[in-house]
């Protein structure tokens, strides 16, 4: 599966990066955001129920180790996240796909925290909202230094729906991981070797490989959050 690697190399660049940054004034205030988020959540009640009923059976299978179901569930969630973040990041459209990816990583790393007694959608939303607030906080500080831009509306109108490329290239962040973690991820996650095969090749125990993969992804999640733009 080195095709993924090849496909992704050199794609960390996004033309919209050249856009001038956005002022703090263009950002909604934290409390204002909270209110619109809650209002939108109510408005989307019905849509939300469909999301839940589609996701729940997949998610339960995924939690017990069904890889296909997990992939399907993550795709569903990614679509939903894109929709959700796009609406709350009107002023920061460049950040949408990055935040989708950051949130997916967070969901994966904390998937043990899901309690089967609660709706999956509530759990996903809890983490997504947390990630959104975290981004507001980070942006609020950094963007405060910049000048306002003209023609923001035209720019916004030009953003078409569908997946946009993330600005932060996760593939290049892999390179920053410690060697053992990087190798464990590359073998089991990119090249598609089984944990047993990876263990034989590296001479490290299977549980150690799993630990390295988990630590590597955790580290990656931290790197994504820190990545300056």
């Amino acid at each position: 599966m080195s095709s993924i690697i090849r496909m992704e190399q050199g794609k960390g660049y996004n033309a919209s990066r050249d856009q001038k940054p956005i002022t703090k004034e263009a950002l909604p205030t934290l409390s204002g955001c909270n209110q619109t988020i809650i209002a939108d959540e109510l408005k989307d009640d019905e849509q939300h129920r469909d999301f839940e009923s589609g996701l729940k059976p997949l998610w339960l299978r995924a939690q017990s180790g069904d890889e296909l179901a997990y992939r399907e569930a993550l795709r569903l969630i990614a679509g939903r996240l894109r929709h959700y973040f796009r609406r709350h990041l009107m002023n920061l459209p460049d950040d949408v796909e990055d935040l989708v990816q950051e949130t997916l990583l967070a969901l994966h790393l904390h998937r043990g925290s899901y309690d089967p007694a609660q709706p999956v959608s509530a759990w996903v939303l809890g983490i997504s909202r947390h990630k959104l607030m975290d981004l507001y906080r980070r942006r609020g500080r950094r963007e405060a230094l910049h000048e306002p831009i003209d023609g923001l509306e035209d720019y916004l109108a030009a953003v078409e729906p569908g997946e946009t490329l993330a600005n932060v290239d996760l593939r290049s962040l892999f390179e920053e991981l410690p060697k053992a973690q990087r190798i464990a991820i590359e073998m089991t996650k990119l090249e598609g070797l089984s944990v047993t095969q990876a263990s034989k090749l590296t001479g490290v125990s299977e549980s150690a490989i799993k630990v390295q993969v988990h630590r590597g992804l955790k580290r990656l999640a931290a790197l994504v959050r820190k990545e300056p733009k």
Partner: protein
Amino acid sequence: MKTDALIEVLARQAGPAPDFPVGRHLAAAAALGLLASSVLALALIGPLPAAVFYTAAPWIKLFYAILLLVGTSALAARLSRPASSTVMARAAVTSVFLLMLLAGAVTLITTPEGERWSALLGQTWWVCPWMLMMLSLPALTAILWAMRSLAPTRLKQAGFAAGLVAGVVGAMGYSLACPETSVAFVAVWYSLGIAMTGWVGQWLGPKVLRW
């Protein structure tokens, strides 16, 4: 990297979801905090004479603290996961607080009028909440640290709950050295000290629990 490729990476050989050790981590942190607050209380203030432990006073404090510990740790555990309901845990904590205040009020009413102020303020009312809070700080550090490894998404509330657990643990340590004997004193000043630790946690939560 495209999001689809990331999903591929995450899903491949993901295996079953790992355990989420909320109880284990929080309990370990609270136990560590209890040890610290007890040692500090005995070292800084000194133990009560053994005879005091044959009276009801220390046991009332301990009983109150244990009841609160059940509710506050349930609250902290629920706030360590995204979206878990906290209604029951909050109700439990609030009712223990209120019951203790009620018990304090009742004992005050049954106290002869001239002794009410001394029952309420004791000898140490102005040190008690501060001392209790100080003895709680190691526990607060440990519990916030433990929470960081979990998945709190409501950071203020989670910090407040962590502070309450720490406050209760601090109260347990302080009860080994605190000379006060009246129920009303415990109801007011212990509760205040625990709440103060909660507020410190609430202030720290959004700062240290981010992920």
